């Protein structure tokens, strides 16, 4: 795949989202469904890699780029992740003028709420693929409860899940 196209597809996703995983539905739609560059599992793995290490949640875009086109793809993903950050510079300049505008606030709230819906929608195919057994469904539920209900670091949840998975594999031998 052409790197420039990959960059713009990923940028389209990052520039229309307001949170780390908010770009996921667009990436799923473009790279998995429309262009068929990635499989569901590759995208799912990229999200897992992004959540396993330190740094911003949006880093999974780098993993997506890598899965699509190797190291050059990872660089394209990184550039797509950082490019929207510079939009804050013009915002800084005009902040005092528009930051408190009620209509602008309502529009951003609506986009955030819609992003939550898109994220829930994007979770469906992942869940279909990942939750094949009762124990994987239980892990997903525990992960949800821990992540949504406590301040525990997601890296610990990932680590504990990997440990439990490895232990159960050894026990089943």
């Amino acid at each position, binding site marked *: 795949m052409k790197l420039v196209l990959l960059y713009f597809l990923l940028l389209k996703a990052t520039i*229309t*989202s307001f949170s780390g995983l908010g770009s996921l539905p667009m990436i799923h739609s473009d790279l998995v469904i429309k262009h068929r560059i990635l499989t569901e599992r590759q995208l799912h793995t990229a999200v897992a890699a992004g959540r*396993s290490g330190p740094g*911003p949640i949006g880093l999974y875009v780098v993993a997506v780029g*890598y899965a699509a086109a190797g190291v050059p793809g990872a660089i394209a993903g990184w550039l797509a992740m950082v490019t929207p950050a510079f939009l*804050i510079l013009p915002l800084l300049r005009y902040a005092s003028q528009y930051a408190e505008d009620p209509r602008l606030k309502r529009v951003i709230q*609506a986009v955030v709420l819609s*992003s939550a*819906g898109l994220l829930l929608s994007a979770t469906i195919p992942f869940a279909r693929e*990942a939750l094949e057994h009762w124990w994987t469904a239980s892990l997903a539920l525990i992960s949800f409860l821990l992540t949504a209900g406590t301040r525990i670091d997601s890296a610990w949840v990932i680590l504990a899940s990997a440990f439990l998975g490895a232990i159960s594999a050894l026990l089943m031998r």
Partner: protein
Amino acid sequence: MSKTEAPESRPSFWSIFLIFLKAGNLTFGGGDPTMAILQREFCERRHWLTAEQYSLAYSLARVTPGTNVLAFCVAVARMMHGALAAVASVIAASGPSAVLVVWLTVFYQNSSGNPVAMLAVSAVLSAVVGMMLAAAVSLLRPHVKAGKWQRAAVFCASTIILREGFNLSPVQILALAVLGGALWKERA
């Protein structure tokens, strides 16, 4: 130093770079913990940034598309040391962790031959499903807590219906959300 006073000194480029490097790459849990560490380093410990400057950068980062914490880094670096520092801040805050993410992706991809590693990865992928649901809940929670649950329910549910039922693309749905947000006024 009071909230409105000017910063006490102009920091050097490399001292800013090193703090972004440390905060961005050693902090787990996403953007909020990183921004909290940067607040402590820049405002409380070194007084390079006023509380007002921090608040302005924090609130604007929330409304900037993309990864909020990187927008925050760009804003505070620009305030402290100009445009070059703004560029350097995103490189420092995300470059090394991006390399680590690539390494983790390779690790996950190469686990297919090993049954123990495969089950460990399956477990991780299941946990990620829970995390994705939690991420959606965290986007909805502030609106529900603020009593705007009707707005949250309408926008979220209609998005799912438009996506799953009518197969609209995310761009089309977000464009409709912009329109809906501009038109929807809360009762006083």
